């Protein structure tokens, strides 16, 4: 019983769930109800590519819903941005339903009216703030002119002189000055405040349209009161400015309260709109996908086989009109999505695989293999009980930040610690504890041999996985007789044993010879059958494939030497670190230097080793592993469902 249950769990982790391709015919008016059922159950991924019915049906989507949705969304986004609304409200998934077009229109009308009111208040506030800024700048200008001691009234009274005061952005000042000179005008800078410069534009003759055009382009903002008032009564003008500033501050306060009141009174309405939009979005997703011919509409999608009955029941129960649901088992040829139940522990491995590509419907999900082998590779390359413990503590301490990568960090740290015990290595010191297995520096060749055997075991596993994938794809003969499958594994095992015999000068055993010849003979028979079935053009394809495969077997196997090489490198670098440290004299000051050096160098070494070993681990998984048995061209299963929150 336990084994059966365990087998079922592993099967769900490894094999994508069987899918059925479904088509749903329903009354067009029931569209929102049908989609509500689908989104509540989360049991159907809508198919977006054209169906076989494309020649008989035309795209269909209720215009009223589309218009209401876009209007509501546009007003909501405007208000959410204006009021800086954030935060998420949960949706009740059990009762969630697509809103009606009429309810959305009503809400959109209400929001539209609100937008108008908010906009009007904002416009008033903008005008007041502009005026406040103008007054600040004006005050500065009045002071600047008074400081210059210019009799502005006398200047403006001159017949052949034109004069203007105002502000321009500081960034535009140089360009304006040079440009104005081309029209024989002079721009004098009176001072700057923030990003604005106070300027006086002086020229001969009257103000021309050309000068006006130039000043406009330079964002020149003329000062309000007439220049004539500026002469001789600076104090009066500044008093008037101060009075107006005080009045403005009161008005600004009123406008701000008005804005806050609006937000307080209507915040709930906007939050309601967020909920309505979140529920409407699932139906809006069907725009362009739903087809129909009045009064019937059609949707197609993918449903996990074991949930089909639930879906049928829910559609019968919750949709007012009739729903005809047709379905057929999915085949890989139809490119169904893949749903693989990945437990939380394996999610990092699944994320790693996703970088390579999602598993196809007819493929095996390698997450379990990756999750088991990744810490083994990491630990073997970076086996150190001390550093492993440090990494473990760091992983536990930063578990929140690590998020879904926590299991990888913990398992790799643990593996590093355990291999450290096996190697008898603590912080690079090789004599503090006894080695439970071997010391890399003392037995490098044994370690290299073990790394190679590890590689052989891994590559044999990839043969098994490839054969299993081929079997799943109904390519049984290739799984057993192909060089990528059974025959290849037999040949590879024979070749490994033969190489070992030759290396140990023991000669090639009969068993090894039989395995090599047997594997090759079966592969050749398979090749012959393929050529007979597909013609001679297969010959070059097979020759190239076999050549590449044989070459890659050699390089992939040798590649695993890095498992030992990096373990040796860790031991060697640690030894070098202690040697350098011992060159520092053992005086009291020297010990301080020694300790500082040890800490800094160890931290650098730890960082570099983690980086390098992590890269090598990923490389082994991707290049030596996944490329051999995994295609990764599937698409993940993303059923239509209501979002859990309104965000």
């Amino acid at each position, binding site marked *: 019983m336990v084994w059966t249950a365990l087998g079922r769990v592993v099967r769900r982790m490894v094999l994508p769930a069987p899918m059925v391709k479904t088509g749903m015919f329903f009354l067009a008016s029931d569209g929102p109800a049908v989609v509500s059922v689908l989104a509540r159950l989360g049991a159907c991924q809508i198919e977006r590519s054209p169906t076989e019915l494309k020649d008989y049906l035309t795209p269909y989507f209720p215009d009223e819903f589309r218009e209401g949705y*876009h209007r509501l*969304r*546009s007003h909501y*986004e*405007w208000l959410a*941005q204006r009021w800086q609304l954030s935060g998420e409200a949960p949706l009740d998934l059990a009762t969630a339903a697509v809103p009606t077009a009429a309810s959305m229109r009503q809400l959109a009308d209400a929001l539209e009216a609100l937008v108008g009111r908010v906009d009007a208040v904002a416009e008033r506030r903008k005008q007041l703030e502009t005026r406040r800024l103008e007054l600040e700048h004006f005050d500065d200008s009045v002071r600047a002119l008074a400081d210059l001691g210019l009799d502005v009234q006398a200047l403006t009274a001159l017949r052949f002189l034109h004069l203007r005061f105002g502000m321009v952005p500081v960034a535009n000042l140089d*360009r*304006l000055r*040079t*440009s*104005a*000179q*081309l*029209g024989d*005008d002079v721009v004098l800078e009176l001072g700057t405040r923030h990003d604005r410069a106070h300027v006086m534009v002086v020229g001969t003759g009257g103000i*021309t349209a*050309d*000068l006006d*055009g*130039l000043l*406009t*382009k*330079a*964002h020149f903002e003329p000062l309000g009161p007439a220049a004539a008032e500026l002469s001789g009564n600076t104090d009066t003008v500044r008093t008037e400015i101060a009075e107006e500033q005080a009045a403005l501050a009161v008005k600004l306060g009123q406008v701000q309260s008005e804005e806050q009141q609006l937000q307080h009174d209507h915040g709930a309405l906007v939050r309601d709109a967020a909920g309505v939009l979140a529920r409407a979005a699932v139906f809006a997703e069907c725009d362009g996908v739903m087809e129909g011919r009045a009064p019937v509409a059609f949707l197609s999608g993918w449903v996990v086989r074991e949930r089909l009955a639930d879906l049928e029941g829910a559609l019968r129960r919750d949709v007012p009109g009739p729903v005809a649901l047709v379905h057929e088992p999915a085949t890989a040829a139809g490119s169904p999505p893949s749903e693989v139940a990945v437990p939380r522990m394996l999610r990092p491995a699944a994320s790693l695989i996703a970088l390579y590509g999602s598993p196809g419907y007819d493929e095996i999900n390698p997450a379990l293999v990756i999750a088991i082998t990744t810490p083994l590779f990491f630990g073997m390359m970076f086996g150190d009980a001390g550093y492993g413990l440090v990494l473990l503590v760091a992983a536990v301490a930063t578990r929140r930040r690590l998020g879904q990568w926590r299991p990888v960090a913990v398992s790799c740290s643990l593996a590093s610690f355990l291999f450290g015990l096996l190697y008898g290595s603590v912080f690079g010191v090789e004599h503090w504890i006894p080695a439970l297995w071997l010391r890399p520096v003392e037995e490098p060749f044994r370690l290299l041999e073990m790394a190679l055997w590890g590689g052989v075991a891994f590559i044999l596993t990839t043969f098994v996985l490839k054969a299993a994938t081929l079997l799943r794809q109904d390519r049984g003969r290739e799984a057993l007789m192909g060089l990528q499958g059974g025959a290849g594994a037999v040949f590879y095992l024979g070749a490994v044993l033969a190489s070992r015999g030759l290396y140990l000068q023991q000669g090639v055993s009969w068993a090894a010879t039989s395995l090599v010849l047997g594997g090759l003979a079966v592969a050749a028979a398979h090749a012959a059958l393929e050529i007979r079935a597909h013609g001679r053009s297969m010959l070059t394809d097979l020759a190239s494939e076999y050549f590449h495969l044989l070459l890659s077997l050699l390089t992939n196997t040798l590649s695993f030497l890095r498992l030992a090489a990096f373990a040796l490198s860790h031991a060697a670098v640690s030894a070098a670190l202690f040697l350098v440290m011992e060159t520092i004299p053992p005086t009291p000051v020297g010990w301080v230097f020694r300790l500082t050096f040890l800490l800094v160098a160890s931290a650098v070494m730890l960082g570099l080793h983690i980086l390098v070993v992590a890269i090598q681990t990923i490389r082994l998984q991707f290049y030596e592993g996944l490329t051999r048995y995994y295609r990764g061209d599937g698409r993940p299963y993303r059923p239509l469902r209501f979002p859990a929150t309104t965000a």
Partner: protein
Amino acid sequence: MALRYGKYAFLHARLGALKAGLLTERQWQQLLDCGSAAEQRRVLESTTGYADAVRSTHEGMLRALKQTSRTVAGKVVRSTPSDGARFFRAWARRDVLRNLRAILRGKAIGRSADDIRAVLIDADADDRLPTERLLRCGSLDAAFELLEATPLRHWVQSARRLYERDPTLFGLDAALDRLYYAEVWHALDRLDAADREPVATLLRLEVDQVNLLWLLRYRLNYRLSPAETYYLLLPVTGHVSDTELQRLVREDSQAAVTARLAYRPLRDVLAPCASIWEVEVALWRYRARQARRLLSQATFTLGEALALLLLKVVDVRDLVALVEGTALGIDTVRIRQQLTGAGSH
């Protein structure tokens, strides 16, 4: 020197492969000899650079063609060391600028979202232009407001202020151009001196082209004063210096502007031109010639990469002119007059 070869070895190799995607003079001749759009498609299907682009409808093909130069730019960015990549990313933002301009112009003249969408280029996710939300905006003001909440606000605020005071579309264009080239020049200044010069060689010509064309349009078409014209030119200059531009804006005819150009190669190129359109074509052709020369020298510099990108832009520009011209039934001679790259020979 050896360091430079090492630094740009990969980029050089990648450019070698990308060069094969440019149309040759022979392929252009074949395209011009085609009697119909269908034949042109067949010729393009046999090319390395455009085979994928032609497997679509007419509109889809035009979009896909425009997209190819963006794809090449992406490949160049990915093959260039980080400082150079930063420059090319800034340079390639012209596509964001083009989309932004199309959207703002479209909103200003009340075009529908679908009409605007049809002329946009598919931009990368990191372009930060909220295209769909912009298309949904009911007015230009709403579009400005939305853009001011994005990282593009520094581009937009200035353009908006200008447009509000002076609601002309060319003013908007000029403001966006000024901001774009200021950014590109800033990115250029951040390159090492050795990397900067080969890039600046081509970029100066581009800046000259923009400045001269805007100068002629402002003075002769829009009748702006010398002061306004000078103010609206780019804040950076190429072979035509700032002082020279101040002199040129005072001229009131194309012939006078051309005759007073101090940089002789430009003067020679522009002397035979009778209209602003001819000036534009002549400048494109001149830049394409310079780019081709730089690319053929295998200099192992960033200049090579910019030359390839420019030639790709020219190729695509010409192809779009050819495809659209053929669809409109324009004869080959007139189409050829518009071409600026290898097809113009």
